[in-house]
């Protein structure tokens, strides 16, 4: 099936070359970082993680969210997802790859990365994160590929793949729970040290992932002959809507706990993010946009006519995705480091090389995603009916 990526329209090639150019720019920026050190980023001794780890955290969620498609289909036989299960699995593959790359570009001594395997340390959560992420990557590659191959042959998927599908479903939440444990087990970082972190991670993942899938399905439908199906898109939107509400709820629980208890150290980060602390307000505009996007997302996804009309749906899905990206990809990590252990404020803002590297890694993800979707769409364009006898191809 791999040969399918080599045959495409002019538009396909233009997009692939565009992504490769961005990857090239990111790579050059990374060489610069490799030479000079992480000093070229906006990170500091006080805010020692930034955009990279934020992207990692956010993308683990996107990867885990494949389960919102796979679970209804394989466990509840929700037929409408038959066509897009593989779309979810392939999104997970691209996301996990990006996660790994973001960890890699964040390392001060990347050549030593294998020390994690050479000196396995089970008391470090990072150890488990490595296991669950690589396991999840392998599971999704296996399931996605085997099922798509079966579809190409016009045969039902082999029986032996079933246990792997069920394992993958159980595995998906684990990657995000473990990622939350990286944060929520640290003493002295009050913004992160909350038991609801893992739950909030999962809920925001199950809002942002389906929102992205809505957009991706629309793109696939527009540019290929494969139709993921209107109903599948609507169900994705509903999943996203519920989990967006849950996420906002969880965030408000945090706010209640911090402010009703009146404990200052639990309030500082929240005050910094939304109002600014000691006159430092760099992230306030980010959070204002975040609130605005959340409002747009909620209004569109919750109101049935707005959700059903696909123009507004696209806007609502994009707003939801961006809002959660700002929250988890930037403010969560940076906010946790402010104020520092001395209750002083040192701010963070990404630099240009850091941003270019980040764009480069995202481009790698979209590059892989494009190739995988190209394969999937081409296979599905040929299989006119799916195994439930529903039309796959636009007429």
């Amino acid at each position, binding site marked *: 099936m791999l040969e399918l990526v080599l045959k495409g329209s002019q538009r396909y090639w233009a997009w692939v070359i565009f992504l490769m150019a961005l990857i090239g720019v990111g790579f050059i920026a990374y060489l610069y970082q490799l030479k000079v*050190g992480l000093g070229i980023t906006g990170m500091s001794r006080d805010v020692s993680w930034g955009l990279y780890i934020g992207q990692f955290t956010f993308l683990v969620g996107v990867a885990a969210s494949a389960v919102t498609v796979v679970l209804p289909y394989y466990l509840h036989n929700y037929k409408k997802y038959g066509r897009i299960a593989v779309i979810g699995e392939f999104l997970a593959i691209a996301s996990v790859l990006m996660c790994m790359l973001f960890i890699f570009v964040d390392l001060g001594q990347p050549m030593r990365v294998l020390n994690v395997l050479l000196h396995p340390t089970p008391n470090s959560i990072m150890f488990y994160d490595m296991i669950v992420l690589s396991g999840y990557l392998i599971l999704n590659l296996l399931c996605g590929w085997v099922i798509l191959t079966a579809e190409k042959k016009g045969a039902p998927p082999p029986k032996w793949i079933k246990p792997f599908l069920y394992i993958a479903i159980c595995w998906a939440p684990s990657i995000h729970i473990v990622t939350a444990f990286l*944060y929520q087990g*640290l003493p002295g970082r009050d913004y992160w040290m909350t038991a609801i972190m893992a739950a909030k991670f999962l809920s925001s993942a199950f809002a942002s992932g389906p929102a992205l899938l809505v957009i991706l399905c629309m793109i696939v439908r527009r540019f290929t002959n494969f139709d993921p199906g209107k109903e599948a898109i609507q169900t994705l939107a509903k999943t996203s809507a519920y989990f967006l509400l849950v996420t906002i709820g969880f965030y408000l629980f945090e706010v209640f706990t911090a402010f009703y208890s009146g404990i200052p150290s639990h309030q500082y980060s929240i005050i910094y993010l939304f109002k600014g602390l000691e006159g430092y307000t760099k992230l306030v505009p980010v959070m204002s946009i975040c609130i605005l996007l959340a409002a747009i997302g909620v209004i569109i996804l919750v109101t049935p006519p707005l959700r059903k009309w696909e123009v507004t749906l696209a806007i609502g899905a994009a707003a939801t995705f961006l809002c959660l990206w700002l929250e988890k990809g930037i403010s969560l990590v940076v906010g946790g480091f402010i104020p520092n252990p001395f209750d002083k404020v040192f701010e963070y803002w990404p630099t240009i090389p850091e941003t270019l590297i980040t764009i480069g890694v995202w481009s790698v993800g979209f590059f892989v995603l494009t190739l995988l979707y190209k394969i999937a769409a081409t296979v599905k364009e040929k299989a006119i009916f799916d195994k439930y006898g529903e039309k796959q191809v636009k007429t």
Partner: protein
Amino acid sequence: MRIDRRQFLKILGIGAFIGVGGWSMFEVVSKREIEAFVERYKKVPEALQAKRWAMVIDLKKLDEKIMNDCIEICHRIHNVPALLNPKEEIKWIWKEKFKYVFPEMKDEYMPEEIKNKYVLVLCNHCENPPCVRVCPTKATFKRKDGIVMMDMHRCIGCRFCMAGCPYGARSFNWRDPRQYVKEENKEFPLRMKGVVEKCTFCYERIDRGLPPACVEVSKGAIVFGDITDPNSEVRKILASNFAIRRKPKLGTKPSIYYLL
């Protein structure tokens, strides 16, 4: 000579057995030898011994000059680079105002001279160190005498320990530190970019029978000793004085005590 398939497999099997067995024997013996060697030379007769090292810093005896002397000698003998940008500063021991070192004690009616008094801060060498717990490569670990050590040659630079440390005691080499080391002490390793470093309680001096350098130049303001030994000086001071530790509620159990 012709050999049939059966003979060939036999020879192959015997060969593999001897090869694998012999190789593992070699491995075991050499590992044992190394361990015996280490055991023999591990205990330097003059090395200071303790179950858990601790430090008592007397704020009444600390003055500007003593603090600067402590910082100067520590940073000089450990080749700590003089990076001036506060974003990238490397600090093993440094001065910080009381109100920032003990933020939970902040009180508007506290005397100004205490609130703004400078205090020496360094790695707390916690009994229950979060940095050791989170390190994915054991690059930071606890010695038998309680010193929280840093293997700067194993560190991958993930900075999980910096997020884990509630005392801000860890520094990262955001760029190559070598050009910022004014005069190099050839007896202590230089670091490279991309690794974390911090105070190591002068393990290299303790193992040669000397107290940490800051203790030596502190004119009695810093007392160092084994906190598990009831007859040690630190224990005597703690038994008869009110001492505080940084952020005790976190359960990290710092080994650095402060006398007000």
